[in-house]
C-alpha cells in the first residue's frame, strides 16, 4: 500500500514538474498595459517596407519608419516627413527634396539623403522583388533598372546631392509622387543595417528604424509592442508613449477586446454585429476610396455582349443592396472612380431600370431570360461577399429570369481563378493606395495584370497614356473622364457600391479622423482620461 502511495505521489510530482517546465518554456509573462492598444486585424507578413502590401503591415511600418513624405491624418494627403519641403521643376520632370538633418536612426546616427536614395534604389532593384515597385516606375530609368540583369544605378533618376539634398528625375510629370512616397513601401531604411545583416536585418535584435516609434517586442500572431522614439524629428507631436498592436484575426474576438477595454480601436467589426454596433456614438463611419463591383469575363459568351452586361447591371437595385444587404454606411455606386477626388468629375453609370434591362436582354436574344445559360458567380469565402452575391442572384432571377450558381472559393484560390479568367461573373473589390483617378482607371488598361476581365480597348489605353503625360491637372482630369466614359459606354464592369469605413474608436482617443483612405497614423493619436471633455 505504501509503495502504491509513493508511486502515486511520484506520478503527481512528475506531472507537476512537467507542467512547470512547460510553463517556463511557454514563456508566460506578465506585462503592463500600453497607453494605446488596437486590433491590427491580422499578423503582419513582414516589417520590411519593400516587401509589404497589406493594410495591417502598413499601420506598423508607418509607425516604425518614415519616408520623404507621410500621410495627413485628416485628409490622407502627403505631408512633409523626412523631407521638410520639396520643389517641382517647371516642366514637372524633376523634384528636389530637402531632407531633415534633425532626425536620427534608432542606433543614434543621423538619417541622410543617401539613406533615402539607397531605399528607392533598393525598392526598384530586381533582387528585392518589391511588389509595389511599379508605383515608382515614374522615376527616370526605373523600369529598365528593375528589369535588367545587371542594374545600373547611374542611369536611375535618383541622386543624393548631399546629406540633405535629394533630386528625383521623372519619366513624366507625376502629381501623385508625394502621395506615392508617403506609402509604406517607400519608407526609408538604413543602408548600413540592411547591408550588414542581409535578410536578417529585420530581426528585432538588428532592426534600426527612423519613425515615431521603435519596436520593443514582437510575438508572432500575438502582439507587437511599440515605444515612442525620442530621436524622431517630430517627437513633440507624438503623444503616445507605448502602443500594443493585437494580431487577433477573429472579428468577434476583436470586438470582445474592445468592449472589455483591452483595445481602443477596432477596424471594421464583423457585419454580423452591425445591429448592435452601428448605432453607438463610438462607431465612426464614412466614405472610403474603394469600390465593390462585378467583373464580367469578356471572353465568355454571352458576357462578351455589351447589351447583356448592361442588362445585368440595370436589373440591380444598388440602393437597396447598400441599405439592406451591406448596411455599413456604403452608398450605391453610380461611378467607377469613387466620388470625393478633388478636380475629377467621374461620368455617371446608368441607374436601376428593370424594364430597360428586360428589353436589352430580349434584344440580345434572351426574352424573359429564355435560353440564357446558367452562369457562375464567383466570390471568395467571405460572409459579406456571400450575402451580396445571394442578393444579386435573387434580383437577376426575379427581374430577368436568369439563373446563376454561386461559387465560393478560399481567397488565394479565388484570386487564381480570377487571374486565369476561370469565371463568368466575379465579385471584386478595389481600394486605392492614394487618392487619384489613375489608381482606379489603370486596372482596366489592356496590359494591366489587374484587368482580369480580358477587356482591351486601344482608345482607352491611349487616353490613359495621354492623361499620364499631361502636365495640366485639368487637362489630365478631362482625359481621364473621357477614358472612364469608354468603360461606361461598353459597360465593362458593374459598379455595386462605394465602400465605407467602419471603425470602433474609444471615446478617450483623440486625433482619429475619418478619411477616404481609412488611414490613421499612430503618431497622431492620443488618449485622454475617461472624464476629459
Amino acid at each position, binding site marked *: 500500500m505504501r509503495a502504491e502511495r509513493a508511486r502515486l505521489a511520484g506520478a503527481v510530482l512528475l506531472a507537476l514538474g512537467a507542467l512547470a517546465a512547460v510553463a517556463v518554456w511557454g514563456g508566460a509573462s506578465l506585462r503592463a498595459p500600453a497607453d494605446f492598444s488596437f486590433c491590427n486585424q491580422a499578423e503582419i507578413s513582414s516589417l520590411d517596407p519593400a516587401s509589404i502590401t497589406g493594410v495591417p503591415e502598413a499601420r506598423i511600418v508607418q509607425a516604425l519608419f518614415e519616408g520623404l513624405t507621410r500621410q495627413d491624418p485628416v485628409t490622407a494627403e502627403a505631408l512633409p516627413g523626412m523631407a521638410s519641403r520639396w520643389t517641382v521643376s517647371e516642366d514637372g520632370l524633376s523634384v528636389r527634396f530637402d531632407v531633415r538633418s534633425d532626425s536620427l536612426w534608432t542606433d543614434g546616427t543621423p538619417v541622410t539623403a543617401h539613406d533615402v536614395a539607397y531605399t528607392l534604389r533598393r525598392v526598384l532593384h530586381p533582387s528585392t522583388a518589391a511588389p509595389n*515597385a511599379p508605383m515608382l516606375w515614374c522615376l527616370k530609368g526605373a523600369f529598365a533598372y528593375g528589369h535588367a540583369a545587371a542594374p545600373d544605378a547611374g542611369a536611375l533618376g535618383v541622386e543624393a546631392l548631399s546629406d540633405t539634398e535629394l533630386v528625383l528625375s521623372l519619366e513624366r510629370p507625376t502629381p501623385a509622387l508625394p502621395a506615392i512616397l508617403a506609402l509604406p513601401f517607400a519608407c526609408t531604411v538604413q543602408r548600413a543595417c540592411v547591408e550588414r545583416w542581409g535578410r536578417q536585418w529585420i530581426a528585432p535584435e538588428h532592426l534600426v528604424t527612423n519613425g515615431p516609434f521603435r519596436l520593443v517586442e514582437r510575438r508572432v500572431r500575438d502582439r507587437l509592442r511599440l515605444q515612442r522614439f525620442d530621436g524622431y524629428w517630430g517627437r513633440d507631436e507624438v503623444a503616445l508613449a507605448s502602443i500594443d498592436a493585437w494580431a487577433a484575426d477573429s472579428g468577434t474576438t476583436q470586438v470582445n477586446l474592445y468592449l472589455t477595454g483591452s483595445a481602443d480601436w477596432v477596424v471594421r467589426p464583423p457585419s454580423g454585429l452591425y445591429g448592435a454596433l452601428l448605432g453607438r456614438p463610438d462607431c465612426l463611419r464614412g466614405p472610403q476610396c474603394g469600390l465593390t463591383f462585378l467583373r464580367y469575363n469578356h471572353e465568355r459568351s454571352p458576357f462578351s455582349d455589351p447589351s447583356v452586361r448592361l442588362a445585368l447591371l440595370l436589373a440591380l437595385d444598388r440602393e437597396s443592396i447598400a441599405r439592406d444587404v451591406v448596411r455599413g454606411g456604403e452608398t450605391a455606386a453610380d461611378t467607377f472612380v469613387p466620388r470625393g477626388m478633388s478636380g475629377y468629375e467621374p461620368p455617371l453609370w446608368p441607374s436601376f431600370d428593370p424594364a430597360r434591362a428586360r428589353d436589352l436582354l430580349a434584344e440580345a436574344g434572351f426574352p424573359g431570360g429564355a435560353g440564357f445559360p446558367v452562369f457562375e458567380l464567383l466570390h471568395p469565402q467571405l460572409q459579406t461577399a456571400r450575402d451580396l452575391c445571394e442578393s444579386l442572384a435573387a434580383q437577376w432571377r426575379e427581374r430577368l429570369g436568369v439563373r446563376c450558381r454561386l461559387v465560393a472559393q478560399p481567397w488565394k484560390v479565388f484570386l487564381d481563378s480570377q487571374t486565369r479568367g476561370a469565371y463568368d461573373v466575379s465579385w471584386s473589390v478595389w481600394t486605392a493606395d492614394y487618392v487619384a483617378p489613375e489608381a482606379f482607371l489603370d486596372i482596366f488598361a489592356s496590359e494591366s*495584370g489587374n484587368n482580369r476581365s480580358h477587356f482591351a480597348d486601344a482608345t482607352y489605353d491611349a487616353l490613359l497614356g495621354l492623361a499620364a503625360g499631361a502636365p495640366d491637372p485639368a487637362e489630365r482630369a478631362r482625359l481621364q473622364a473621357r477614358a472612364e466614359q469608354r468603360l461606361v459606354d461598353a459597360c465593362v464592369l458593374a459598379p455595386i457600391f462605394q465602400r465605407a469605413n467602419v471603425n470602433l474608436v474609444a471615446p478617450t482617443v483623440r486625433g482619429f479622423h475619418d478619411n477616404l483612405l481609412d488611414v490613421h497614423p499612430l503618431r497622431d493619436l492620443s488618449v485622454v482620461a475617461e472624464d476629459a471633455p
Partner: protein
Amino acid sequence: MTRWLLSRLLWAAVILFAVVTLSFVLVRSLPGGPFDESRALDPVIRANLMAAYDLAAPLPEQYARYVGGLLHGNFGPSLRYRDYSVGQILAESLPISALLGALALLIALAVGLTAGALAAARRGSWIDTGVMGAATLGIALPNFVLAGVLVLLFSFHWRLFPVAGWGSPAQLVLPSLALGLPFAASIARLFRAGLLETFGEDWIRTARAKGRSPSGILWGHAARVALLPVVSYVGPAAAGILSGSLVVERVFAISGMGSHFVDSAFNADYNLALGVVIVYTALVSGFNLLADLAYGLLDPRIEVA
C-alpha cells in the same frame, strides 16, 4: 522491450516520411500561390520572388532540397510571415500550444475522473444522472459554443478573466477550460463504464470480503483497471487537444500552432503547412507510443514487448 521500442520508432520514421511526401504533393497541387494578392504582381517581380523562395525549380528538385533541409533540421522560410523561418514560428507557437494542451488535459483528467468515479459510486442516483447528463452535453457542444458561453459568463458578466490574449495566468483559465471540458466529458463516461464493469469482478468481491473500505476498493483496486480504456483514449486525445485547439486559439487570440494548421494552407504557405503537419505527426506517434507503454505499466497482464 528495447526491440519493440526500436521497431515502433522505425515505423514512426517511415510514417513521418510518407506523411511528408504526401503532404508536399498535396500542398503543392493546391490552386493559388503564396504570392497571389488582390493587386497583381509584375511578371518579372513574381519570377524574382519565386526564385528568392526557391519555388522556381522543378517540383522533384524542390522536394529533394526540402527533404535534405529537413534532415538538417531546416524547415525553410515561411512564405506568409516572411521575417521568420518555419523553425522560429514552430519554436514560438509549439510551447504555447503545449502549455494550453497540458492544462486542458489536466482539467480533462481531474474533472473527468472525479465525475466518472462519483457517478459510478452513486450509480442510479441523481448524482449519476446529473453527471452523465452533463457529460453528454459536454460531448455534444462544439468548443466554440462552450468558449462563447465561458466568455459571456466569466468575462462580460462577472468580469473575472480576460476575454483574450496570452501571457498572464488569468489568460490561461478560459481557453484551458474551453479546450479541456469536452474531453473531461468523454473521460467521465469511459471511467464510469470501466468502474462499473470492474465492480462486478470476483477479485473486487474478495477485497470487499476482506473488509476494505468502498473508497479503498474504488481507488486502490478498481480504478487501476478501469483506467485502461481512459489511457487508450488519452493518448490520441492529447494529440487531438493539441491539433484541435484551432477554434479555441482563434476565439481567445492565442498564438499557438492550431491556427497555423489551417491558415497556412489557406495562405499557400507551403513550408509552414508542412512544418505543422510534421510536428503533429510526430506528436500523434509519440502520444500513441506513450499510451501503449502506460498500458503495460497499469496492467501487468499486458506485455508491450
